[in-house]
């Protein structure tokens, strides 16, 4: 189940981006990197159907779409277990023992066994990310969307989370779109990597090609150079993420 963006644009006080085109093939994993404030998270929310397009259209044929939010968006009044049984009940109509068994299996898959009765604010940032991933996966999605899946995590936990995403994604052969500022995780997670900057999607190259590319914006971003087409004004233009 692929994703197609045709001439997509979003406007708040000003146009954040316009005429974006992107095709994500069935089972493909696309990563979008780029400076803060360029609208990466906005683009993800548009793909998820949480924000409308102001121009163009997005085709997402999947009925079941899972998303890991930037701030995890865990239901803080529910326990870890309930954060998984709730989507099962509401989205798939699965209740009772079957829901309990499925949630137990998923918690085990993401390494959260033993935390079932804790609340989200009682577990660490890394565990919250794992729970967010588990919640996104429990509804058996065909497409997964990850908004900064490793933001705020230490490098070791960040790598563990990326490994977990890779293994779970490979197991279920899912299509995914990930937004991140972490280029190492982008290499790890993406089949193709794009840079969103100044309203344009650049690149679309494999991790190996991305590392060697001469596209100045991408080169500047991945090497963290001060000099280049991504000026300080561009990087800190402060659009909504």
């Amino acid at each position, binding site marked *: 189940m692929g994703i197609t963006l045709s001439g997509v644009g979003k406007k708040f006080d000003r146009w954040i981006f316009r005429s974006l085109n992107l095709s994500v093939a069935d089972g493909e994993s696309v990563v979008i990197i780029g400076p803060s404030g360029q609208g990466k998270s906005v683009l993800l929310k548009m793909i998820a*159907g*949480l924000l409308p397009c102001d121009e163009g259209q997005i085709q997402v044929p999947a009925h079941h779409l899972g*998303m890991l*939010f930037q*701030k995890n*968006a865990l239901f803080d009044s529910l326990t870890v277990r309930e954060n998984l049984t709730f989507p099962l009940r*509401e*989205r798939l109509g699965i209740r009772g023992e079957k829901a309990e068994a499925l949630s137990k299996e998923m918690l085990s898959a993401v390494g959260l066994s033993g935390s079932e009765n804790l609340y989200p604010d009682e577990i660490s940032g890394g565990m919250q990310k794992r729970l967010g991933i588990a919640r996104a996966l429990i509804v058996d999605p065909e497409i997964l969307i990850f908004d900064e899946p490793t933001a705020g995590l230490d490098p070791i936990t960040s790598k563990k989370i990326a490994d977990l995403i890779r293994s779970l994604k490979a197991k279920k052969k899912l299509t995914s779109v990930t937004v991140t500022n972490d280029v190492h995780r982008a290499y790890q997670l993406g089949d193709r990597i794009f840079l969103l900057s100044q309203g344009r999607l650049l690149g679309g190259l494999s991790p190996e090609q991305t590392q060697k590319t001469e596209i100045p914006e991408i080169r500047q971003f991945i090497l963290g150079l001060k000099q280049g087409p991504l000026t300080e004004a561009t990087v800190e233009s402060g659009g909504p993420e």
Partner: protein
Amino acid sequence: MKTAPAKNLQSNLHQVGQAFQEQVDTIQDIALLFKATLGWFFKRPWRWDEIFHSVVQMGIGSLPVVLISTAFAGMVVTNELAWHMNEALSSISMIPGVSGQFIVRELGIAVPAMILVAKVGASTTAEIGTMKVTEQIDALKLLGIDPVGYLVFPRLIAAIISITALTLIAIGFTLIFAIFVAVAKFNFGTFEFINALRPFVGVGDLACALCKGISFGILIPMIACGYAFRCQGGAKGVGSTTTNAVVTATVAVILVDFIWTYVFSLLL
């Protein structure tokens, strides 16, 4: 070229205009939210567990503070009226009628309403506003759950039930403590007070109280949820949104209180 005072004036006017526009937009959003919430009366499923949970939180959770406040309000009103009557008329025989009518028509309703605006309104805005800024509402939408049906409608039903019930309980409790002071301090007999009260308080007064209670039960959660859905930013955003919701709900409750009082003054 504009002078500095002219620029300041322009900037101040711009800020006032923005604030006014923000209020207008919020009121429009609250009206649209109310319309969407009314639609849920004809949809299923009604989330009874959420409604029950909200009734417990709003109704039973607010009961102690409402009872304490109205008890003191009842004692204050008898004391005050007695003093004024004694000064002006050299008689306190009219206390039951005046205080009873004042309590049933106004005091027994206004005091709990203000407390419920502060308690129910603030907690609802803070809770849903936090869900908004932490993307929990987006997560609900992604699960195919309508936030209006899940968050707003149960709270509206619960608030109508709880606030109407609390209003009636508060009237009764205020009266009891008004009688207590009249008996303990001004030597009225309990039945003497109740008998003297009867000609002044009728079914119309109770209907007025009921109308006010139901109206507040609609106003408080709708204003609280309307503001919460517009909440932006982090903790500061939730804080300022909660403050604005409480202020708006307080003004709205006083306004609606006046409207019902005026309508019933024409009818009774």
